């Protein structure tokens, strides 16, 4: 880690230019890999590589994009959110149990469910910011607490039905496009505005790079440290709502498959797990890359274990290719020439 800071201070003035270049390069690289993989998947099975597969990937990837946005913000400020699976479950359970249970007209219950998730995120942030518990431990603790509370309250089996709004979000069409695709495009645009083009986003980058310097520069550090956890928790809750609409019901393990991919999407997208570096578009690319790989690997018809091995290997290769050092080396070669 001290090496990291050493490299940063060495590069000095060129840092901003280097950051933009590195992130743009990795985002474009991921986009190219995604398109290539979609095209190449034709050779695996004729059913793939078609528009309908693109649709499937976009719909299946939308859940991951939503949670990875929150995870990305938390990672940007130097934290990590392990409470995502529990909050997806909480969001799902609240939407089916409270909203869906014969209250289809009570529209205010959905924002209430999201607020409940946001409150849990706020509690995590309080632990991290004021009690100085490491983010890793704090979000793990809230995760364990929320998961076991959900288990206890539902007595092991969540009941209730998917609210109509969730079904409409996931299953209808807008202008001939499936509505989740329209939704995910809007979400990515808004997320990009927030993270890359708003003062708020710039504050988050500043905190992730150097909290002390940002405090001196007048950034509201405490508020900006709390904000990502609340957003991440609400995103996870909303992903739970989306999943409920997609699969018409909540289960207690519905979030489990999203923790590691949410981190993987952010890391593959070129963000540093230490904070201060990364771009939302890269994360979106990472999320779709993982989803494409998932659909391709399941189309090959391999057994689940082999699929998992391939998935892990690909993550490893992506990490090796996107290594910080590799970029530095390419840059220094160019400088010499």
């Amino acid at each position, binding site marked *: 880690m001290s090496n990291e800071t050493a490299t940063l201070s060495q590069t000095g003035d060129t840092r901003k230019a280097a950051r933009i270049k590195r992130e743009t390069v990795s985002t474009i690289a991921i986009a190219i890999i995604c398109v290539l993989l979609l095209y190449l998947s034709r050779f695996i099975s004729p059913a793939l590589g078609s528009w309908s597969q693109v649709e499937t990937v976009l719909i299946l990837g939308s859940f991951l994009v939503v949670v990875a946005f929150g995870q990305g913000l938390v990672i940007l400020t130097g934290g990590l959110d392990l409470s995502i699976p529990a909050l997806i479950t909480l969001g799902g359970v609240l939407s089916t149990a409270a909203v869906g249970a014969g209250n289809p007209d009570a529209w205010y219950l959905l924002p209430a469910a999201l607020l409940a998730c946001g409150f849990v995120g706020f509690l995590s942030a309080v632990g991290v910011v004021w009690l100085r518990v490491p983010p890793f*431990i704090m979000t793990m*603790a809230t995760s364990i607490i929320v998961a076991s509370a959900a288990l206890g309250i539902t007595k092991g089996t969540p009941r209730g039905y998917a609210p109509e709004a969730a079904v409409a979000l996931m299953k209808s069409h807008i202008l001939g496009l499936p509505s989740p695709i329209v939704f995910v495009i809007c979400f990515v645009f808004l997320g990009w505005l927030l993270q890359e083009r708003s003062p708020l986003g710039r504050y988050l980058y500043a905190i992730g790079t150097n909290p002390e310097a940002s405090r001196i520069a007048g950034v509201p550090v405490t508020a900006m440290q709390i904000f990502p956890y609340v957003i991440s928790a609400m995103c996870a809750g909303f992903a739970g709502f989306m999943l409920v609409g997609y699969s018409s019901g909540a289960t207690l393990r519905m979030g489990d498959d999203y923790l590691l991919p949410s981190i993987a999407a952010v890391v593959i997208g070129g963000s540093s*797990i230490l904070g201060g570096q990364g771009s939302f578009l890269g994360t979106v690319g990472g999320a779709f890359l993982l989803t494409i790989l998932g659909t391709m690997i399941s189309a090959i018809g391999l*057994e689940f274990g082999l699929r998992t091995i391939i998935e892990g290997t690909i993550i490893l290769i992506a990490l090796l290719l996107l290594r910080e050092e590799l970029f530095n080396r390419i840059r220094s070669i160019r400088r010499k020439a």
Partner: protein
Amino acid sequence: MTDLTQTATGTDAQPPQGRLAGQTFARVLQGGLIIVILYFALYALYFYQQPRALSAGSIAALMNNTVPLALAAAGQTFVIISRGFDLSVASVISVCNVVMAVYPLDGPGGAVMSVLMCVAIGGSVGAVNGFLVAYLRLQSIAATLATMIICQGVALVILNAPGGRVADWLSYELTDQLFKTIPISGLFVLAVVLGWLYLRRTSFGISLYAIGADEHAASLSGINVRKVRFFTFVSAGVLYGLAGFMLSAQTATGNPTSGTPLLLLSFAAVALGGTSLSGGKGSLFASVMGAATLMLLQKVLFSSGVSSFYTGVFQGCVLVIAVVFSGLIEKLGERAAKL
């Protein structure tokens, strides 16, 4: 804690052995004192609820439950002291578990073979992690995430659904008691703790703390950071292998996801033991006690009549309180040292 950072960052990379030996014991006590007190307080509560709690049988049962988590947390401690995270713990344990369930080797000879096999599996995954992190300079959490997913796949390929049967000799003997009092599984943990006390004094142990506290300073003072980091992951892997071995002896069956619950719990145990997640500080013994406390908490809650659904609520709260509390103690200690 303050004298520790001084040792780690000081120019003197290898202080005289005698002084160090005296310090080591003090440090072990210091590092684990809070958690030991918490453990015995909790045990007193357990005894109050269940007078049978002090019988050899229930101590052994508790010990058998604790040992896999204790060993996993012990391995995790190595990596965390060196300022890293190791997610591969869960799937290394799963791989060892399914290997032992699919290829059971009976008798004492088979047990030796099995334990060697588990250690080899853990050690080689650790070597891969170490290579990725130390030599290819990947972020530890990302690299071990990838190896964790790969190993999970390997476990699923070997055994795709819960089943199989661990050798009878192992599951009977390793969960038994020596002379009807000492739980055999506990001896494994004792051996690991003693090994740690020895290792702590060696130059590897000192370097481990040094690279965790300040990697740059450590490399300036002549420590081969890459090599130390590599062997940190290998040692951790070996301990995960042992954890998988003991878990198999305890469950007597195979399950390709048997290690997954231990992932977060191993971090919880380390944090409960007061080891700082930002590296350079901590004690393996305290992590073992942290693991023991987490498992004892489950028993206490169960005997208090709390529905097992809510165990997590208590585990989470205890975790946060312990971390906040040990942070406070550390801060008070630092203030006292300054005066």
